[in-house]
């Protein structure tokens, strides 16, 4: 994705499935258009992420990430 403009990426993903949802934060309404351009299942990604994070913290495998 590096070195590509937003317009080029938008053009590439224009036919991907989209869901639209509305959220309210600090009294303001936001319409969020979620474009699904990949092939991953969110449940798998989140479980993998959670497992790595919890395992690392409990077993002291990686330093605590300030940024992550």
């Amino acid at each position, binding site marked *: *994705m*590096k070195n590509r403009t*937003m*317009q080029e990426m938008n053009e590439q993903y224009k036919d991907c499935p989209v869901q639209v949802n509305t959220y309210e934060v600090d009294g303001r309404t*936001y319409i969020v258009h979620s474009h*699904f351009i990949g092939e991953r299942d969110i*449940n798998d*990604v989140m479980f993998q992420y959670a497992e790595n994070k919890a395992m690392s913290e409990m077993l002291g495998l990686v330093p605590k*990430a300030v*940024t992550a």
Partner: protein
Amino acid sequence: MLPKQTEYKVGMYMRLSKDDERSGESLSIENQRKILTEYITQQGWTLYDEYVDDGISGTTFDRPGVQRLLDDAKTGRINLILCKDLSRFGRNYIQVGQYTDYIFPMYNIRFIALTDNVDTANSASSGMDMMPIMNVFNEWHSANTSKKIRAVVESGAKSGKYRTTFASYGYFKGDDEKRTPVIDPVAAAVVRRIFEMRAAGYNMKRIAQVLNDEGILTPDDYRYSLLNKETPHYSLHLWSVETIKRLLRNQIYIGNLAQLRTTTVSYKNHKVIRKEEDEWVVVENNHEPIISRELWDKVREIEASVSTGKMTKQGITLPLTGLCYCADCGSKFKQAGSAKRKSTVTGYSCGQYARFGKKYCSSHFITAHALQDIVLADIKRQIDFVMNDDKAREKYLARKQGLYAEQHSGDKKKLRDINKRIAELDRLIASVYEDKVTGKMPEDMAFTLLDKYQTEKKSLQSESDEMQKHTDMAKQDEADVDEYIRRLKSYAGAEELTRQMALDLIEYITIDENPRKKAIPRDIHIYYKLIDKPLKNKNNALAEQAGAIKK
């Protein structure tokens, strides 16, 4: 016409390349010196100086010896250049010809290649007639040698022969014929950590900072510390972004041996050029990897991300930094501070607006916490998995026990060594005591030794107790498994948006203009690296738009 030389000041030139060394004694520097000195004596000439290039190819004239010789010739310090044969002077027929045919006559310098019968003062000789042909043959020899060496190197690389002076950081060169890389456990732990930090969303500067703050030796310093030597070249002794970048791109850490990554322009021009990745010779699964393929792929994905992960002045990378674009002008969003304290990042605004002003785009400002809340809410809405607690529990215990076994094997050896030394100290204490009683040892010396042994024993005893305590703690597997499950559920449920989560799930975000009236909704487009699971079996993905969910 230039005057004929009568008195010669001779510059004697000798060269031996690495390849020539295989030809044996006939080409050795010593042998060349002997032949040339004898000839100078016979002729009654004066030797001004000798010029030697040992271990340098004749295809280049970038040799210190030959350059000094040419300087002395041009400044008139010598007027006769003597070498054993033409190939000693050079194997590049264009350059050799240029010197012998143009430059040397211009400076009135005589050139003799003894065994080839070349003498520029005797243009009628057969050697002079043959000189161009001999030059071509000399160069052909170099071209041929170069081809042979390249073929050997390539075949070695293809068979997984590790050809390097120093092994990559994290490995030692093996003792086998192929010098197969062997893991260095100390450096490998640092390598693993670097990859894990990068996968967790650290940018390279931050990784370097962490390593520098902890005082971890740089690869160069570590290598020389193992050799008990000072780093021989100038160094700041600090990890740099470049070092981290190189390390993160080295396939050696997944067990692949990638060689022949650079080449030279030709055998005559030794300028190093980098090859395209598809031209490298890569032997897969050549040796034991330090990191998993999964971790490697994760780092590759982060490298390909549109975000470079710029840090704030406080050294923190916000979860969505670098992932947002202005929907109107397409420029990246920049971190924006508050009006009072510019160093504190409170949100993001259009990069074009930030750099060039409102004439080119509007601010599009959005607070960091609003954007994070929106993204988090949208992620949470999509999660619908059911966790199998027993399976998670089982996996955690297995991993913990694996780690325990790994650690325990090291501890066991250390504990054994400590106990051995304690037993030895007991024996020493007893023998000193006996020697004192029997009068074999003066009392003051006995007390000094006893004191020394007792102190060492006490220190070892406390170390042993500490290790035993660690071992006992590690055995309490069940105690923390509940905490693990709690954390697992919390993270999988996306309680907070982290940088790593953002990088795992989001390709990029576009943010529309901020409407002046608060009542007008604002549009945000999130491009997920995900499949559209809820709509998988529906024909019209946009059908969902009608039933927008209000949080």
